């Protein structure tokens, strides 16, 4: 009997579009049931920071680098909004989905691999962060920040940044043994990064070593990029910052996949 020719592919590929779409559809459909609370927390919190610092602090420090303090904070808190709408939902959402709802068990029984699952979840959270991230800037515009063409790039900056932080949250959830573990990450990692990102005060006032360390803080690059988008790009420096954000995203993306594979496949 003639031997049949083996089909071209015995194995479905990696990072397939239908698999990513499937996971994204689940998120989008779910979003329709909780978008109000999610939009509320992701936009109101950074706005409160903006108003509290912008006007509270702004009465002491009226100008930074020749600009009204509210504009300085208004652009800076874009990064805060990105962080709040990516790292935190990724961390808690991922944990809830594998530990309590067991959603990931159902998804991985379908033709979806962990790599695709993590990637699709991160893409979705990044997209939300890209949108929510713009809110503080819009609020700042309402309070007198002049719109500029460069600001059109801000959703993209927020998206790239958000992808990295989404992966960060998924990674932490993948390594975490319990919900309580998140406290360490929030206190020891996220809070310091958030405070020394140049959001509320310029990094240039800090000692040299702190300025050097700030280069390793992805939030700082996000803050600077948004400011430069609003007030004028800095050429190579900004490209380097974009590169740093992309590098951060890619590295953490791979580690998140590793962590979640360990968690979900035994």
């Amino acid at each position, binding site marked *: 009997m003639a031997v049949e020719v083996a089909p071209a592919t015995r194995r479905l590929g990696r990072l397939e579009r239908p698999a990513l779409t499937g996971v994204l559809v689940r998120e989008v*459909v779910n979003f329709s049931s909780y978008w109000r609370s999610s939009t509320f927390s992701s936009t109101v919190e950074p706005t409160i920071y903006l108003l509290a610092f912008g006007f509270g602090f702004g009465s002491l420090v009226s100008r930074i680098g020749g600009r009204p303090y509210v504009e300085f904070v208004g652009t800076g808190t874009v990064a805060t909004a990105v962080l709040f709408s990516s790292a935190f939902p990724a961390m808690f959402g991922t944990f809830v989905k594998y530990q309590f*709802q067991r959603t990931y068990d159902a998804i*991985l029984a*379908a033709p979806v691999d962990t790599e695709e699952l993590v990637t699709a979840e991160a893409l979705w959270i990044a997209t939300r962060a890209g949108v929510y991230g713009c809110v503080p800037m819009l609020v700042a515009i309402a309070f007198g920040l002049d719109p500029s063409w460069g600001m059109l790039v801000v959703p993209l900056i927020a998206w790239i940044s958000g992808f990295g932080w989404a992966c960060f949250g998924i990674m932490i959830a993948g390594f975490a043994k319990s919900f309580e573990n998140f406290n360490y990450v929030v206190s020891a990692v996220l809070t310091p990064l958030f405070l020394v990102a140049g959001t509320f005060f310029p990094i240039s006032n800090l000692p040299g070593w702190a300025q050097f360390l700030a280069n390793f803080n992805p939030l700082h690059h996000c803050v600077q990029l948004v400011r430069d988008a609003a007030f004028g790009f800095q050429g190579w420096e900004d490209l380097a910052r974009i590169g740093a954000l992309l590098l951060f995203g890619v590295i953490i993306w791979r580690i998140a996949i590793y962590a979640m594979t360990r968690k*979900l*496949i*035994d």
Partner: protein
Amino acid sequence: MSNDRLNHPNGPTEPELAIRLRGAVKRYGTITAVDGLDLDVPVGTCVGLLGPNGAGKSTTMRLLTAQSIADEGEIEVLGFRLPEESKMARAQCGVTPQLDNLDTTLTVEQNLLVFAHLYRIGRGERREAIERALVMAKLVDRRDSRVDKLSGGMRRRLLIARALVHRPRLVLLDEPTVGLDPQVRQELWALIDALRSEGTTILMSTHYIEEAQRLADTVMIMSHGKAVAAGPPSALVIEHAGHEVVEVYGPPTRLAEVEAEAGAAGLRTRRTGTSVSILGVDGRNGSPIEGERRPANLEDVFVLLTGEEIA
């Protein structure tokens, strides 16, 4: 032209066995959950994995979707070798987990829609696939209800229908009726039976004897990660427990006596809570001890073979 294609002259789309396990071993630290398991599920049959909690049934199920990776042994599902080709196999499998993992804040229809996407049903067929699943689950008029508003039985029907939305060739049901009322359980049996009569291959794990006896063409009894017996339920019963059983009730001291007497007569016994069952009494006009005669069942076989009571 790989070797496995020569072994399957009909190609990977038409294997004779929907599932083939050879010497599958899965260890978690010092615990061996699946211990050298061989399992054949011929295409178009319903095979029941019967065993108490902790026998390795759920781990076996997870091995079949490559959510657990075997430490040793060979696993093939629908002709695809696991874990490497698992994704191809999963595309044609439907899985109902033991624990309900529906999206509770979504409607019935939204849950099916999500899985129609996850199982890659084309845009043109999606609507029809969802309708078919709604009919199968008898949830057509509850399509817009949120899952957290459904009864336990409805949720389980939806959980099964969700696994059938893409017309899988193989369905894995992990404890499909666990924790449900007897009535609801019977509804689900009807659903599974309908699926079976359509020719879908089913592997079902259960710790309900009656469920295995009613639905499975072949039952495999598992204990401590191993298969202790396999065959059609009725054949297993006759082979291991005979046609009839005499059940003797009495105080514990009496039961001990009965066990001793039966043992002396060369008969096997098992404790059934408040009674002793004397097995294999058929062919004799009377057992050495008087008691209630009843047909032997799978539970007798199970306890006999494993020494374990089943829940």
